[in-house]
């Protein structure tokens, strides 16, 4: 398959089941809602070492938030429910509760409820109070800038993590430009996040390492500086490879995001140095979700 001079590999991305939740963070203005959300979703690029994968899904205008203030929807993905609940609680407690003017609401009504303000309320040292509004319980926790308002729980649902594709380009600036275009397009898709810095991974990994202590190591087959030193997957003209990883609530969401991203990258075309789109997998033996690039782009 070839789109605008860009070869689409006959391969697939391999993804795994995860648990996910979404929260809505509001604040006095969008600037402070983003600060709270960016802080909460920081250091959450990969479950390998961060405990969860998290990111901002989208910004919300006041008319879409529970309290009528500007807000941000953030999503957190983890390998299991307990881990997700723990990550949510610590991140919300340290990053949202502490952030000026913030309030925290559920972003998912479906699924199993996990604590949001339910345990954070104890910060109130007995001065906290609850309000049940339209069937939902909220906690008012007195803090130094006024009150921190948090919904008691949010929903946790089954989700998918690890959808991905690789952009192979003739130069590093061209690879990055294609990634930026892809990420911009993918941010328009609901129910997905791209958890890596700016949505882009430059250090894609393979399973295993020559060092026993490591479970993952650099994906040498896609490292351009090793073209003459390892069993490379790169042709001579490829000088830079970057990856975009997608976590989403459903297979359909991830497919939609992958298609949007690949379309945007291919939009730059061979004329801008974009030569190939590929994907990372483990031979289809580990993850139950396979995203075939050519099927998605058909």
């Amino acid at each position, binding site marked *: 398959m070839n789109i605008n001079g860009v070869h689409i590999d006959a391969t697939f991305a391999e993804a795994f089941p995860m648990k996910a939740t979404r929260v809505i963070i509001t604040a006095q203005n969008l600037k402070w809602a983003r600060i709270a959300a960016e802080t909460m979703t920081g250091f959450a690029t990969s479950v390998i070492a961060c405990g969860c994968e998290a990111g901002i899904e989208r910004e919300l205008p006041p008319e879409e938030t*529970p309290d*009528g203030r500007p807000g941000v929807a953030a999503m957190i993905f983890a390998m299991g429910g307990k881990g997700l609940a723990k990550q949510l609680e610590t991140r919300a407690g340290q990053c949202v509760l502490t952030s000026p003017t913030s309030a925290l609401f559920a972003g998912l009504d479906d699924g199993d409820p996990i604590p949001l303000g339910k345990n954070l309320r104890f910060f109130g040292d007995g001065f906290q109070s609850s*309000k*049940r*509004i339209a069937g939902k319980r909220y906690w008012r926790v007195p803090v130094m800038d*006024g*009150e921190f308002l948090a919904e008691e729980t949010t929903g946790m649902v089954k989700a998918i993590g690890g959808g991905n594709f690789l952009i192979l380009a003739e130069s590093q600036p061209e690879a990055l430009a294609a990634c930026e275009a892809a990420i911009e397009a993918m941010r328009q898709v609901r129910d997905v996040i791209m958890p890596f810095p700016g949505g882009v991974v430059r250090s894609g990994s393979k399973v295993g390492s020559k060092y026993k202590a490591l479970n993952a190591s650099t994906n040498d087959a896609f490292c351009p500086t090793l073209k003459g030193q390892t069993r490379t997957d790169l042709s001579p003209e490829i000088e830079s490879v970057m990856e975009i990883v997608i976590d989403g609530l459903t297979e359909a969401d991830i497919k939609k995001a992958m298609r949007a991203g690949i379309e945007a990258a291919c939009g730059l075309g061979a004329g801008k140095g974009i030569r190939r789109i590929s994907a990372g997998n483990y031979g289809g033996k580990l993850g139950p979700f396979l995203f075939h690039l050519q099927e998605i782009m058909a």
Partner: protein
Amino acid sequence: MTALAFTLKAAPKQRVDVAPLIPERLAGKRLADIGALQLQTGNRQIRADELFTVEGDDASRLVFRGATGKLDFVGKGMSQGEIHVEGDAGSYLGMHLKGGTITVDGSVDAYAACELKNGTLLIRGNAGDFLGASLPGNKKGMAGGVVIVKGNVGDRAGDHLRRGAILIEGDAGSYLGSRMTAGTIAVLGRVGDHLGYAMTRGTLLLAQAPRVIPATFNDCGSHTLGFIPLLLKGFADLETRFADLPDRFQRVRRYAGDLCSLGKGEILVAL
């Protein structure tokens, strides 16, 4: 299907207990069976069709036509459906209500919404004393749901209120929210003395400053509280002016009390 209508043949001289006339107890019954239901009035029982003309076939929607203040226990223990009272209702309207909606076009007597658990109660006229309260001797009043009164309410509204919201668009009498343990009472009009007497938790939200803030409430200053717009937005689907008034309560003065009790309640007065 038309609502099942109970039209009073004549104004009753004695009080009538109409508690048996709720949707779940009438579902599937023929009109003749409904007419044969026994209702307590004074010290005797009479058939429902001696008192009412019964017509219609949708038992999930009841209408009391020509209703007067002699009809007590309207909707008592109802868990689903609708009751519409065209006229006034007596005491204990919506007592132990568990779900559904009761609408009264006129006024009601004491103990409306008494120990109400859930559901919605709309009174377009006035309500008597002990709105949303507990029965005498009991310690748990209304425990959920929403009660809206377009007119005025008597004394002791929300006595022992435990959960839920009482929205009063007119004036409230004395001892508003006395002994309440949680929940919200909001008043657009004036309020009487001794508000929040012995309240432990919960919120009294007032559009107008009371004549006197009780001595056992301490001033906590003026604030913008994020839960208030959320609270008022929660009433958007209901027939109440409160849903349209987030700006009115944007800034409030907070008084904590009753400090003679647990002291974790609050009176919020719009500025």
